């Protein structure tokens, strides 16, 4: 479903993603793990047509996101790591716009929106402007919106960041359900190893822009001789705390592109 070979992304001097390769099979839940600034979000941006790779091969359902952006966009849904809601609109209006963007049939819209807003306990607040929501509520709405249509591939970029255990539980139950009943392929990143272990069939660990290990949770534990995925992760990526190199990458990019008109 996803095929990546020798993928590279450079921002000026900085190489955010350095020749990674992996495959995600149709119908599986694939976790992409790594410390802050390892290149997770940059990879997702390339997979989801938001960023053109510097070099390397990339295929989503057999299509190249750089040349067939529109076709590729029809195939996936995404929950972004950072906010992407319209604060000047209500929760319901945000859901409605999404339904239009993703061609959810008109007669199904109301029902689906209500169901998801109820699951994530936002129904009572549906007519409030999103900018008045708390951080947790925004996050929940973001996820509810991402699940509004049923794509072939669902990208979840640290979806549970800042969520309470109840909501996390709701999310993963819903995602597993989508995966099992609709065969949705899921590509997720997270910092919570227990989540990765709970939902993912296969895992790839990225560090400093390179993939350092991939396999099932069981294989990773065997490979490192550790009892838990958390320990395996630390053994593979070291225990030093990382600065968020992503922000400096962003800064570099900002400078280089202030006037680039969307080109790199």
């Amino acid at each position, binding site marked *: 479903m996803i095929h990546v070979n020798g993928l590279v992304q450079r921002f000026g001097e900085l190489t955010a993603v350095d020749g990674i390769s992996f495959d995600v099979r149709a119908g599986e839940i694939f976790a992409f793990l790594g410390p802050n600034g390892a290149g997770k979000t940059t990879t997702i*941006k390339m997979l*989801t*047509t*938001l*960023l*053109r790779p510097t070099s390397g091969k990339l295929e989503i359902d057999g299509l190249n996101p750089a040349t067939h952006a*529109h076709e590729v*966009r*029809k*195939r*996936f849904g*995404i929950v*972004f790591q*950072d*906010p*992407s*809601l*319209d*604060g*000047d*609109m209500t929760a319901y*209006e945000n859901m*409605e*716009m*999404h339904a*239009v*963007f*993703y*061609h959810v049939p008109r007669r199904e819209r109301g029902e689906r929106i209500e169901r998801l807003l109820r699951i994530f306990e936002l129904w009572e607040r549906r007519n409030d*402007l999103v900018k008045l929501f708390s951080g947790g509520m925004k996050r929940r709405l973001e996820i509810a919106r991402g699940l509004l249509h049923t794509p072939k591939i669902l990208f979840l970029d640290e979806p549970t960041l800042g969520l309470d255990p109840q909501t996390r539980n709701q999310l993963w139950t819903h995602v597993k359900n989508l995966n099992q009943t609709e065969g949705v392929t899921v590509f997720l990143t997270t910092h919570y190893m227990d989540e990765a272990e709970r939902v993912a069939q296969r895992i790839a660990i990225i560090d400093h822009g390179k993939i350092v290990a991939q396999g099932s949770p069981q294989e990773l534990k065997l490979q490192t001789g550790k009892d838990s995925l958390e320990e395996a992760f630390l053994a593979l990526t070291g225990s030093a705390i990382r600065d968020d190199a992503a922000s400096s990458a962003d800064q570099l990019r*900002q400078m280089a*592109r*202030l*006037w*680039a*008109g*969307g*080109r*790199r």
Partner: protein
Amino acid sequence: MSVIYIMWMREMKRYIRSRAQIVASLGQPILYLVALGFGLGPVFQRAGQGNYVQFVAPGIIGMTILFSSVFSGAGLLWDRQFGFLKETLVAPVPRIQVMLGRTLGAATVAVMQGTLVGIVCFAVGFRPADYRQLPLALLFMLMIASLFAALGTAIGSALQNIQGFQMIMSFLVMPIFFLSGALYPLRDLPKLLAAIVSIDPLAYGVDGLRTALIGLSHFGTMLDAAVLLLGATLVLFIGSRLFSRIQV
């Protein structure tokens, strides 16, 4: 179509919900109208040019539409800042539709602002020369708004952040306004200034408005309309190219 509609609707809702902003954005045109209109009035009268409020009102309406449409169009930058832009960029819909809906919305908002300022002009004593020409005035307002809303969207697509917008204001939007003849007659200008004015699209917009509202024409209505339509098409084309290439 539904994408264009929902993006247009979004601009409408934002506009209607920001009542404080609507009132605030009327401040500047009213200041120009009252301070300049009555301040320069006596000099204008003595120079044998007639009533300055009559003369300047179409210019102030043009100014309002210029600022309003560029600002709304460049609202893209705020969407980039707050993240909503990403939502529209990964959606499986043609980006041209997203861009068109947004631009039409910005243009509609600008026409509404222009109309409000027109009403204010009327309140301080401005009277159209011929009420039957009002539809023509509205048409010119629409053309001005479309051109500059498209420009705003193009700028929003090309810039990476809000900081850059200040530069655009100083070096593009303000000159467009001051060199458009919104505040002064275009007749007998120094050659250099006349040459610059003749490449300012707003000059044709203001001229069209002035023709419709007070029967005073410099370039001729046909040329005015042609320049505006051509300009709008060109900027829309460039804007859609830029918008379709945005990466985040």
